Every structure is written in structure tokens, then in C-alpha cells.
């Protein structure tokens, strides 16, 4: 026991100790394991306290020093790779340490993010969603990583990004919803870059996305639909929106979702459906579907969510859509769409 005493450890020694001991957690036997594990957790806690404590006092560079030590000694790798072997309390401290280090800057540089981007670490974190024990810890770290454009680009440009489409549907609810919030963060944090990604990877992305919209799981379906609406209505994704609303299978899907049992899903579907109708330049296939269903759509929309009488915007949009559909002509031009908006004169 005295061998592993942490009382006199300097930050430098603490980092070195953790770097040495954490990998041995994996292979150590039961009794020994317990001993090391306890000590590791204790040291992690001390390290975390030092890292956070020093942030308060300006000018004290202890935190910066520890942070530099962690990055240069490749401790991030040790921590993330062995996360599953560290005990519950220790894991929480690992998350706190990693997230703190990720936030630190030297001038305009973010050394930790750069270090992670040079390695495979980000994918280790994504894989973490497959292990119940550490899934939520990894999620927290991933969302911190999502603040850094380099790391988001790294994820989006890798096939392993599509793993998220599985993770958001796992049966454990808290993991699935954690994965979804990470997924959303990745797609909404850096709008311009994500727009480029969506344009380039349109087909693979939306093929996968389709499966979420057709999911058996109510929560997945609803969340995915909501996010879809947000993405399409975001001006940065203008090109993507135009492409999406020109594909008849997407319109069919939305029309089916409009008729779902759940009112919430109907409502979210409405916000995607409206873009198809409002589009001033509807391609022929879209126009054909709308024309074929004109009477039924008008009828349906008139009775649609009549209880939302308070929601002015919704009602304005709804009556606008009804009017649009009624006035549909096989060849149509110059119908401009405005959300309850008077033209400036």
C-alpha cells in the first residue's frame, strides 16, 4: 500500500502513475486489481481537483501544466482505451479531466483536440456506445469533442459515423437518447461544414436516415422527424432541402407520417410536408402526387389538428397549404412561399 501512496504525488508523478497503472487494470488479478483500482480512482480524483481548482485563480498555471502533461504523455489514449476497467467514480473523473483538457487553449491552438484528431481516439469513444458500462461517459466526451470542427470533420468523413444510426435505436433507452443527442450535436454544431457534408454525402446519409424515419421505435421516429425538419429548414442546408423535396419517395413518406396514430409525429411531419407543398418549383413527380391526392389532402388538412387554435403560426401555415393545394395546376409557376410574412415595401 505505501508503494502506491498518492499523498505526496506531484501532478507530474500523478500523470505518470496513472499512465503506468491504468493499463495494468485490464490484466491484474482480483485482489491486486481492487488495490490498484482504488488507488487509480483516488489519483484521478486528485488530478481532477487540481485541474479544476486552478482554473479559478488567474495566472496560476498549474492547470495548464497538468493539461500539457496529459496531452504530451498520451494519457488521453490511456484513459479512453481503458475506460471500461476504471471503476464508476473514476470514470466520472476521467470524463471531467478529458473535457477540461479539451477546453483548454494555448493562444489559438487547442492541443487536446489536435492530439485526438491525430489519433483514432474519437472512434474509440464512438465504440464506447457498444459497452453499456461506459456508453454515457463516452457520450459526454463526444459532445465536448463536437465543439471542435476538426473532430467533427474527422467523424463525418469516416464510415464509422453511420454507426450512430444503430446506436440511436438500441434497446436501452438512456443510451439511445444519449446517442441521439450526440448525433444531433454533430449535425447542428458546425452548420456550414455539415451543409457541405450533407451535399456531398447526400445519398448514403439520407438512405440511412430513412431507416430512422421508418423505425419501429416511436421515440426514434419522432426525434428523427423533428431533426429532419430542423435540418431542412435551416438556411445553410438550402441545397440539401431542395434536393430532398424534389424526391417523390420523401413526399410519400411524409404523407404516411401525417397519418400516423401519434399526434406528435403528425405534427412534426406537417413541418416537413409543408416544404414540399410550398416549393414554388415543384418537379413533375411531386406535382403528380399532390394532384392525385388533392381532394383528400384538402379534406385531411382541414380537419388536421383543429385543437391547436391557439397556435397562430400553425393555423396560418395550414390555411396557406390548403389554399396552395386547392389552387394546384399541372403546370405551375411563381408561387412564392412566405411564412406568415408580409412583404417589405
Amino acid at each position: 500500500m505505501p508503494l502506491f501512496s498518492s499523498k505526496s504525488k506531484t501532478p507530474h508523478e500523478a500523470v505518470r502513475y496513472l499512465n503506468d497503472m491504468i493499463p495494468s487494470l485490464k490484466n491484474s488479478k482480483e485482489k491486486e486489481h481492487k488495490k490498484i483500482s482504488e488507488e487509480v480512482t483516488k489519483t484521478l480524483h486528485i488530478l481532477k481537483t487540481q485541474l479544476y481548482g486552478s482554473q479559478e485563480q488567474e495566472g496560476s498555471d498549474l492547470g495548464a501544466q497538468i493539461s500539457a502533461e496529459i496531452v504530451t504523455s498520451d494519457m488521453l489514449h490511456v484513459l479512453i482505451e481503458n475506460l471500461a476497467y476504471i471503476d464508476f467514480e473514476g470514470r466520472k473523473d476521467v470524463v471531467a479531466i478529458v473535457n477540461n483538457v479539451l477546453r483548454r487553449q494555448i493562444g489559438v491552438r487547442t492541443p487536446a483536440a489536435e492530439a485526438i484528431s491525430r489519433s483514432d481516439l474519437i472512434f474509440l469513444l464512438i465504440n464506447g456506445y457498444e459497452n453499456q458500462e461506459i456508453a454515457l461517459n463516452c457520450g459526454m466526451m463526444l459532445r465536448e469533442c463536437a465543439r471542435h470542427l476538426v473532430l467533427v470533420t474527422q467523424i463525418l468523413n469516416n464510415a464509422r459515423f453511420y454507426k450512430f444510426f444503430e446506436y440511436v435505436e438500441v434497446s436501452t433507452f438512456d443510451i439511445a437518447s444519449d446517442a441521439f443527442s450526440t448525433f444531433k450535436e454533430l449535425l447542428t454544431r458546425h452548420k456550414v461544414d455539415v451543409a457541405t457534408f450533407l451535399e456531398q454525402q447526400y445519398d448514403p446519409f439520407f438512405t440511412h436516415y430513412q431507416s430512422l424515419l421508418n423505425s419501429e421505435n416511436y421515440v426514434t421516429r419522432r426525434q428523427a422527424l423533428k431533426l429532419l425538419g430542423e435540418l431542412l429548414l435551416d438556411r445553410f442546408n438550402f441545397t440539401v432541402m431542395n434536393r430532398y423535396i424534389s424526391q417523390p419517395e420523401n413526399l410519400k413518406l411524409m404523407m404516411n407520417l401525417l397519418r400516423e396514430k401519434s399526434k406528435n409525429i403528425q405534427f412534426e411531419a406537417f413541418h416537413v410536408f409543408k416544404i414540399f407543398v410550398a416549393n414554388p418549383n415543384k418537379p413533375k413527380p411531386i406535382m403528380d402526387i399532390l394532384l392525385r391526392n388533392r381532394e383528400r389532402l384538402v379534406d385531411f388538412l382541414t380537419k388536421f389538428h383543429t385543437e391547436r387554435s391557439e397556435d397562430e403560426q400553425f393555423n396560418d401555415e395550414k390555411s396557406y397549404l390548403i389554399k396552395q393545394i386547392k389552387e394546384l395546376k399541372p403546370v405551375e409557376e411563381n408561387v412564392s412561399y412566405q411564412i406568415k410574412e408580409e412583404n417589405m415595401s
Partner: protein
Amino acid sequence: MDQEEFPGTSNEDQNAAAMDMFYGIADDGDLVIHRVESDQVVYKPQRHKVKMLGKYLVGGMLGEGSYGTVKELLDTESLCRRAVKILKKRKLRKIPNGEQNVRREISLLKRLQHRNVIQLIDVIHNEEKQKMYMIMEYCASELQEMLDSVPEKKFPVWQAHGYFCQLINGLEYLHSQGIIHKDIKPGNLLVTNDECLKITDLGVAEALGQFARTDECRTGQGSPAFQPPEIANGQDVFSGFKVDVWSSGVTLYNITTGKYPYDGDNIYKLFENISKGDYSIPEGVSEMLSDLLKGMLAYDATVRYTLQQIRQHPWFIKQHPRVFASVKIPPRPEDPDDVLRTMTVIPSLHAMHYGDDSEEDEEDEDQIHEFSVPCHDEPNDEHVSLSFGNEVRDHTVPFEQRQSHDVVGEDDGALQGAVPVPNSDYEMKGKKGKSRSRKSKFSSCKQS
């Protein structure tokens, strides 16, 4: 003149006399002062009027704009602090596009939800009074007011950086929703008590159509000093997003240097200077910052930075050391001691719940106070240390034993203890006046 001031004077004798008196004063400069005996003066403290607006309690005035006044509110259901913009329809009609601008602002705000954009919570119409109330998030101050409170009219770099980053976040959100603000300036940036910046006043903002291919705009109604060359030159069509970038650039220039890139005695001179494109960056501005400013104030809108470029600029990314003391939100001019800008609804709350100084009220209050005394004067652990296990039936027992020596039996003590017995110290407090007892009530609330 005189006729106007005293209408109908020519008809009545009495009034003629009054007029004589008036002239007498005017001629001699001899003022007649009525004496009133001091015992005849009945001083009645003005009763505070409590005003409600729906479920909101109305507080003091926060500011005044061209459209109407802004007052503080307290939501009596959620206890949230709010602000209300009171718009008089009659006034609105006089302002060009006034009503239209307000209607547009409301419809835009309703669909926006971002931490750096002011949130519209409710709109109340009062047809009878011809007034409209826009209830919004409460913000403690605006950047302009903070700048005006310090002689150098600028923020230390790190503080300006904090606000600027939030401005860009809010602006990026607005642009992502297809909204061009068109009037970004320190006067339209509010700050909450926890240093969160909120973009406000979308009165002249423009929403692009969902299917508009470009961000083309044709009108600009913002503040002249913040307008880009394309507007100063009177171009017909220009990029809307770049207008906001320019005015954010002027804002950044202003909050870091205390100056404006372009000046002019009048709007013509100003626009002439802007269209010339000659400006200088004051000394003392770091190279990094001046590079960003140049990018944002680029004359040609096509080479002017995009929000994306601003985000990637080193000055934006950099963590600036907190070297100088921050500029704090100044106290309100009406109350220079109130550095924290406490709620202005408090007088109304008092008036509502404590009424005027009638005796009945005082008693009520004291009772509340009495109950709160034991628990806050005597921490629990002290009782435990003083008493012997099973004797403790009530917290007030040991209290009683210590305070009054004439209590004999423990049972009696317990009985009496249940009824709060005023001790001498307390009675004094009670007589001293309300304000004191109120204070202690608040502190006891905090403790429990």
C-alpha cells in the same frame, strides 16, 4: 395670450378679480404666500399603486424607445422576471411603417428560440386603451448603457470578445433561420445578469423566403453609423447577410476602441465618408483584432468575411487573458446605490401583501415573524447538545429552558413551547418598526 391662459375670464367678475391679482404679482414681483399652520397639514404617505397586467405584476420603468416604454414585470405564477414593451397604437401610426414593423417583429420573434436572441414570451392586446404589450425575457442592461457608464466608452478586450462571440452565435442562428437583422449595434444588444448577450429589436429585420435562392435585400432601415457602403451608396440590391457582418464589425470596432470607423456631422457627411471607404484603426489595437476588423469592414461585400470566416479567425478562437477589470452593469440612474439592479416590483409586492400601515397588518406580520424566530435563532444541533435524549419533544423545549428559568416541569415547558413565547429581545425588535422585522423574515427564509 392671457385670454388663452384664463379662458372665460371676461365673463365673470370673480375671475376678473383673480386676474387683477395676477397682474399685481406680475407688476410688483411681490408674491403672496398663503400660510398654513403646521398642525393643519395632514401628511398622507402616497399609497403605492399596484398595477397588474394579466398575471404580471408591473414594476418600474426600464427604458424608453421611440415606440414606447419598457417596464419590468414579475410573472406572478412562475415568479420569473420579465420585461414588457408597451406600444401605443396611436404613436405607432405616426412612425413610418411603425405598425407593420411591430407586426413583423412579433411574427419573427415567435418562431425564434436561441440563447442569444431575445425571447418573446407573450403578447397582450388592449383594444380599449389601444395598447399592445410585448412581454419578453428580462435583461439587466444593454451594451450601449454599459459603454456609456465608463469614460473610455469601451470594454477590455476579453470582455468584448465574450460579447462578440455570443453576438456571432446569435447572428448565425438568425441567418440560419433566413433572418437578416439589419440593425446590429450596441444599443440593440442586451445583457442579462449572468453575462448572456441577447440580440433584440427585430423591428427592421427581414425574413428571406424559404425558397429565395440568395440573400438579396433591397431595403435598409438600420442606424446610419452602422450601415455598409452598399447601403450608403444607395445600391438597389445587396447581400443581406453581409450587412449584418458589416454592422457587427462596426460594433466590434466600437466596443473595443470606444470609437466608430466612420463619422460625420450629419447623415449625408457620414454616408459620404462610408462610401469613400477611408477609415483607420486606432493605435493599441492588436494586429490580430485589426485583421479581423479589416475583414469584417471590407468595402466590397463579396470579399467581406462570412460568419464562418469570422468563426475561424484567430482573434475569435483565441482565449483572451482577463487582464483588465470588466465593465460592470451600472446601477440605474434613479438609484445609484442599487448596484445589483434589484427588482423594481418590490414596492408593489409590499403594497400588495402588507398594504398600508394599518394596525391589523402589523399584527399579521409579527405573527409570521414570531414563528420564524425560534428556528433561525437556534440552530438544531445546539438543542441536541443541551438536552437529554427523551426529554426533547419539541425544538422549542430547550429554548424555553434556557430562556426562562421559572419553568418548572418539563411537560409544562413543552406545552408552553408549542406556543411561541415572545422573549424580550424580540419584542423590542417588533416595536422598532416594520422594516427591521421584514429583514429578519427574509433572512430566515433564506436559512430554512
